[in-house]
């Protein structure tokens, strides 16, 4: 082995002395699934700490949307803003939270492109914990967004007829729905070339679906009559309503997606994720990294 050390003469005092710390001693046992999931959840929390702007989506946007649609269109659509708020809030709750789900895919896409995901994949860990940990923190984000919107809604005069239990149930449905929905973006995040194309695709799907669904306007001609009869069950029903009851196509997509996600275990999903990854054309960083 021919090592040359000429440059050693030029090294200065702040130079590295790695020898001391290179040997780590005994290798610890690999972490269990819970420990690695928690480590990834902590990573997601730290990211919120360092990039607090990302919380705008769950705090400021819902407020803007709710105020805008209630007071800008409320009168025109439902006759009075108060009545429209009653109808709109559950729908806009679903809309906001489904939009936040995109970021799951975007984060994963970034991790893959930047190569950090490669590092995770060479660690002796239960790999899905990288996604599950991030999802756990997302659940917090979804809940926060829901809480803010319902709180604001209550201030503005929203009176859920389902009561506290109904509201709680509705939020649970939303959490389950967004959890299932986010797997679409997770899968897309693996195959899409860039963050931008993923954004594009997700908006192309989410926006039309939101507007043709009954988030803003009940497409049923017997709008008023139905409103009165649905009554008590409104909030719980409404949150699923907008995607499931009226819009058949969306219904099929989302229900089958829900079935896929809830039916298969995380391990299966990891296998799908892994196989998609294996079949993507190139190592991600090889074709997209620009810097």
């Amino acid at each position: 082995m021919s090592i040359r050390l000429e440059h050693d003469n030029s090294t200065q005092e702040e130079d590295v002395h790695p020898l001391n710390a290179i040997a780590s001693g005994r290798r610890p046992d690999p972490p269990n699934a819970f420990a690695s999931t928690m480590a990834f959840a902590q990573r997601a929390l730290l990211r919120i700490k360092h990039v607090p702007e990302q919380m705008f989506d769950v705090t400021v946007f819902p407020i803007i949307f709710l105020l805008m649609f209630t007071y800008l269109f409320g009168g025109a659509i439902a006759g009075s803003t108060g009545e429209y708020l009653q109808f709109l809030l559950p729908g806009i709750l679903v809309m906001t939270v489904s939009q936040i789900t995109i970021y799951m895919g975007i984060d994963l896409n970034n991790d893959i492109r930047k190569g950090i995901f490669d590092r995770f994949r060479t660690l002796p860990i239960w790999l899905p914990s990288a996604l599950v940990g991030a999802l756990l923190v997302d659940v917090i984000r979804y809940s926060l967004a829901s809480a803010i919107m319902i709180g604001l809604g209550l201030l503005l005069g929203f009176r859920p007829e389902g009561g506290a239990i109904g509201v709680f149930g509705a939020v649970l449905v939303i959490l389950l729905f967004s959890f299932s929905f986010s797997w679409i973006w997770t899968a897309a995040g693996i195959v899409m070339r860039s963050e931008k194309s993923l954004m594009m695709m997700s908006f192309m799907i989410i926006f039309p679906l939101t507007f043709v669904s009954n988030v803003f306007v009940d497409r049923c001609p017997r709008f008023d009559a139905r409103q009165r009869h649905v009554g008590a069950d409104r909030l719980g029903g409404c949150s699923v309503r907008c995607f499931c009851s009226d819009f058949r196509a969306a219904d099929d997509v989302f229900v089958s997606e829900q079935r896929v996600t809830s039916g298969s275990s995380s391990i299966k999903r990891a296998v799908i994720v892994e196989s998609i990854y294996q079949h993507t054309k190139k190592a991600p960083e090889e074709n997209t990294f620009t810097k």
Partner: protein
Amino acid sequence: MDNEQLKRQTNGWAVEAKGLVKVYGKERAVDGVDLVIPQGTVYGFLGPNGAGKTTTIRMLATLVQPDSGNAYIFGHDLKKESAAIKSRISLTGQYASIDEDLTGIENLVLISKLMGYTSKQAKKRAMELLAAFGLENAAKRQVKNYSGGMRRRIDIAASIVVTPDLLFLDEPTTGLDPRSRNQVWDIIRALVKAGTTVLLTTQNLEEADQLADRIAVIHQGKIIAEGTSSELKASVGSGILNVQLLHAAEEKRAIAILEKKLGVPVHVASDAISLSAQVQDSSLVAEALGELAREQIAINDFSLGRPSLDRVFLTLTGQSADEQPNVEEGNL
């Protein structure tokens, strides 16, 4: 099986690969790579962009599955025992594979925890590594504000949170200034001293020369030459003679003289006055230049250089390393 493994391990191979192939679409990114790397050594993959270095490393690091062929890492079957392999290897990718939004210490703590350390141990280990890599002052800064050299160091630090038996380094010094490059080289040497086997890729012959015990030259997914750096250099001759003529009109005569005296083909650049030849024996050079003078062929400039990566490629493949992308398209 156990016996076989034991046998393999006593063979002392860190990596034993046979016929590795990876195809992406029509492109054979890796096209039958055979490889043996003894434990405790540094092995260098030398080749231009797109030669298949990274794909080979990704296969050996269990990140992509080979389409055919197989490899044994410390006797573990790449296809069947990826979990066992993962607990002995570590990968430092081509780009800093750490979370740029997190601080240096947060990154190292995260990786330490994922390695199985408790929170307390993880913090201790992270501090140890930061100190060792001269990054103490930057511990609480986000990695996106690090310089290129610091990123590389934190990246390597993350790879050795638990000392790996085999470390893959994908172009560890590409884009670094000479000082940072020397620091990374020192780190690699220290790692090897601590017993780690290193497989590194590089586009730079000098780097391979400095660090690697053995070098494989990769071209279009195949290993086209393998050996120690001096063996490789010997295979491409002792150096390259560049001669710049004063008058383009004398080109043909000059070529004839040089080819006769040196006994090797002479290449002419497009300007028709720059000649170059791969010299097998540098003692012939003086004689050849003397002959040019006797024939009264005026020379503007001449030089005798050491073989470069470009020259290794020119000789081994008949093409320049810079022309690679075009050539590959042509062959497909």
